[in-house]
């Protein structure tokens, strides 16, 4: 922590540090600076640099601010993983008039509120929300993270996104297994032939595979560093142009 504070103090202009440095250090020794104080020091240094327009230091200060913001964003929004699998109707003799149903409608034993709630509990999903928000909110959040999309006249893609890769895989596996074991309830409008309806089977085509969603921590930090430095340089140049005598 002391090293970060020491570095943050060095972001102030040299002439400012020459005048106020010793007493500023004494203040920091007297108090017990926290994370918020580091941000306050960086902010103070930036404002002081803006008034004096030191280009390299402005770039460094804004780059540091960019890294801090990127780190904060990463803590608030951890990387997520999408686990995706494909399921399809296995019967080869579906009639031409067969209308592909919505998987959510024809598999209430899998996608109904009761079974989804059970899935949330069994896998311990959204532990931070447990006790703070009602189950209906956690269920709604789960539904927002679950995507079921038709990818061909007889196949669907099931995808679940969650910060924990293992849990995302487990949830998608559970959903696909339930669909294979319980099948789907096809109505007469979808397939008029009763024999076909009775023999519709669900097959797992692609087992769930997890992939990271969004930028990694190092990509976010790099973005914060580069973006911050660019902003710093831009402000310093702008400031010099404004101050340049006519």
């Amino acid at each position, binding site marked *: 922590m002391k090293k970060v504070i020491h570095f943050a103090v060095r972001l102030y202009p040299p002439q*400012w540090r020459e005048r*106020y440095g*010793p*007493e*500023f*250090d*004494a*203040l*920091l020794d*007297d*108090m017990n*600076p926290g994370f*918020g*104080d580091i*941000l*306050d*020091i*960086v*902010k*103070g*240094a930036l*404002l*002081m640099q803006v008034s004096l327009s030191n280009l390299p230091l402005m770039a460094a200060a804004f780059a540091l601010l960019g890294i801090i913001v990127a780190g904060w964003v990463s803590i608030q929004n951890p990387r997520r993983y999408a686990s995706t699998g494909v399921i399809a109707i296995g019967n080869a003799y579906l009639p031409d008039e067969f209308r592909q149903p919505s998987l959510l409608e024809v598999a209430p034993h899998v996608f109904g509120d009761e079974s989804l709630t059970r899935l949330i509990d069994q896998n311990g999903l959204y532990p931070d929300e447990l006790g703070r928000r009602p189950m209906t909110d956690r269920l709604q959040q789960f539904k927002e993270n679950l995507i079921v999309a038709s990818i061909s006249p007889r196949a669907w893609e099931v995808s679940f996104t969650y910060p924990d890769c293992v849990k995302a895989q487990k949830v998608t596996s559970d959903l696909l297994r339930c669909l294979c074991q319980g099948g789907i309830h096809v109505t007469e409008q979808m397939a008029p032939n009763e024999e076909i309806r009775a023999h519709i089977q669900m097959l797992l085509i692609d087992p769930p595979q997890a992939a990271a969603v969004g930028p990694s921590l190092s990509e976010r930090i790099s973005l914060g560093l580069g973006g911050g430095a660019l902003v710093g340089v831009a402000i310093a140049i702008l400031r010099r142009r404004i101050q340049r005598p006519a």
Partner: protein
Amino acid sequence: MSDPTFLVLASLADGDKHGYAMMEDIQAFAGVRLGPGTLYGAITRLEERGWIRALNSTDRRRPYRLTAEGQRHLQEDLAALDRVVKAGQRRLKHA
């Protein structure tokens, strides 16, 4: 009310103080905790305007004193704030 320069001037109104003493005093009388960067940003601006001045010190902890001009500005700010407070209270009574 939460303007750091106003709070620093108000803190120095009852005597000379160094940075940490000002920080503690402001938290006690205004309930506002100024960060080190914010506090020294205010001190720098006030000294540039000549509203406070640094005193000699053998210690690293340099005390500051309100100047006559700073005192005049503080009185003006307090008078303006007093008008706002009175107007607000009057309006609340009639609400």
